């Protein structure tokens, strides 16, 4: 493939890889901690706590494997990422969750997500996009909620329809 990236020399410690290894080890610890609270009521064979321990052991071993890879700098080369669009989409998802959570309804929630995502991909015409989003999500609501009887959450806008 297209390697030839001279800045990423094969023997440099990769900090992101260390974080991944630490997260895996942490996940293993959570599994063990959770499994300790389970009662083994099985007469024969394995109880509910056995499988979490097996998975935790696997995760711990993989944490070591990822740790070694990170020390050797064996992670694949990656391009620089732009954090702003990612954050914008996450804000959109947060808005969606908040609107649904507080009963704002399907149309408002998905419109918010549509506009932020579109902005994340470089559009700056918020007003036009908002209108497109409202029309589109209203149509989706009508088709799926009314025609296909899928129950989508209703808010103030949906009650007007």
């Amino acid at each position: 493939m297209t390697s030839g990236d001279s800045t990423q020399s094969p023997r440099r410690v990769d900090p992101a890889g260390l974080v991944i290894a630490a997260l895996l080890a942490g996940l293993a610890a959570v599994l063990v901690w959770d499994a300790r609270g389970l009662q083994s009521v099985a007469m024969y064979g394995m109880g509910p706590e056995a499988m979490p321990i097996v998975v935790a052991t696997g995760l711990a071993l993989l944490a070591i494997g990822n740790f070694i890879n990170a020390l050797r700098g064996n992670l694949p080369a990656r391009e620089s990422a732009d954090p702003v669009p990612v954050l914008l989409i996450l804000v959109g998802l947060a808005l969606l969750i908040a609107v649904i959570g507080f009963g704002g309804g399907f149309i408002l929630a998905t419109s918010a997500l549509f506009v932020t995502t579109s902005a994340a991909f470089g559009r700056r015409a918020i007003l036009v996009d908002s209108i497109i989003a409202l029309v589109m999500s209203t149509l989706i609501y009508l088709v799926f909620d009314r025609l296909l009887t899928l129950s989508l959450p209703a808010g103030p806008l949906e009650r007007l329809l």
Partner: protein
Amino acid sequence: MIDTFAALAHGMAVAIQPMNLLYALIGVFLGTAVGVLPGIGPALTVALLLPVTYKLDPGGSLIMFAGIYYGGMYGGSTTAILINTPGESASMATALEGNKMAKAGRGGPALATSAIGSFVAGTIATIGLAFLAPWLVDVAVRFGPEDYFALMCVAFVTVSATFGDSPVRGLTSLFIGLTLGLVGIDKLTGQARLAFGVPELLDGVEVTTLAVGLFAVGEALYVASRRRHTEEKLEPVRGSLWMTKEDWKRSWKPWLRGTMFGFPIGALPAGGAEIPTFLSYSTEKRLTKHPEEFGKGAIEGVAGPEAANNASAAGTLVPLLTLGLPTSATAAMMLAGFQQYGLNPGPLLFAERPDLVWGLIASLFIANCMLLVLNLPLVGLWVRLLAVPQPWLYAGILVFATMGTIAAKPSAIELSMLAGFGVLGFLMRRFDFPIAPVVVGLILGPIAESQLRRALAISLGDPMTLAQSPISATLLAVALIALLAPFVLKGLGRFKANED
């Protein structure tokens, strides 16, 4: 033999009922329309369209699924040829030559050879499925719980370690999936695991939430993060759509050879269409009479891998239908579709609901024929879909993706999980962890655990039961070899790796 024909004929009778034909048609249409969108592979196509089928009866919905499955595959190759963004690694070989052909103004014949090749391969492979499945069912009936457990170990290892780039990263993905599979109430003792007192978690992690989060939300975040790096260029389809006599002559052998690679490898519980597509590509490169065209748009390099891809897609249905074993992300989503109706694929399903299984297999034939008839004339429509501006495209994908979750469970916690899985999918893409093993781990983990516990309960807790059954002992040995092989080979290949 005769039984298979009778069963297939019965399935055909189910599939050609007008309503079922309509479902197949809608499935093919929707599958192609979603699959053609850049960055969306067949697995995501199926995941996104799962909620659409919620309200149908199981028969109709599975038939629609057959259409979505093949439609999504075909849509993916259209994208690979016209804008060189394969939605999944199995279309990478197609993109290699197909996009060059499109650039050279031969996009029409490239699309045609991939459509007809998919049809040929899909038809042959579905026949293979129809004959192989009853035989495998006979074998599978004799499987005890310990044998099933061992079989799942084979699937775990081959899906994550053996055929990936890095066994450590593949296994990491698998274990994340296994961890997610533990969440919820333990079915044998009723105790909650990893629920942390959150009532929504007691039911476990929804497969569709995970898949849509990882595939759709993760992909959108990933593409957004590197928008500046990529510029997609849509190649217009110029000139004739039809293949010349020469094109036919150069295509038919690669179609058949691709099928021969694709079906057997897909049918093994090894997973992945990448191996057969690349095998087919390198074979065609070696056998061609026009080696100078390879790398510049050789039609053999589209015909072969495309056939291999479709044949292996039908092949993965063999372990899925007969053993309940998904070996690809798409097959995992199909299994989720079955589970949505409380149906568990496996030998029992063949015995209890033959109309359903054979109706599905017959629908695969019908979907295949519909694709052939629909796609070439409609290629102009699909190309227009490809031209949707990126901001609206991904905004629309996210709206549709969240709609599935909102319709199934409109709770803030479920949606937060969707967003969380999206971030996970983004990070996994960024650090090059494979996604499919997570989904397979989530689905198969709980099944493997319950089979193992059943086996141990029957043997009164004696773990030697795993080694005493010859089937299970063999399968576990295969799993162990498959697990260790990449590490051993890597050790041997270290010298070579240092050289480049």
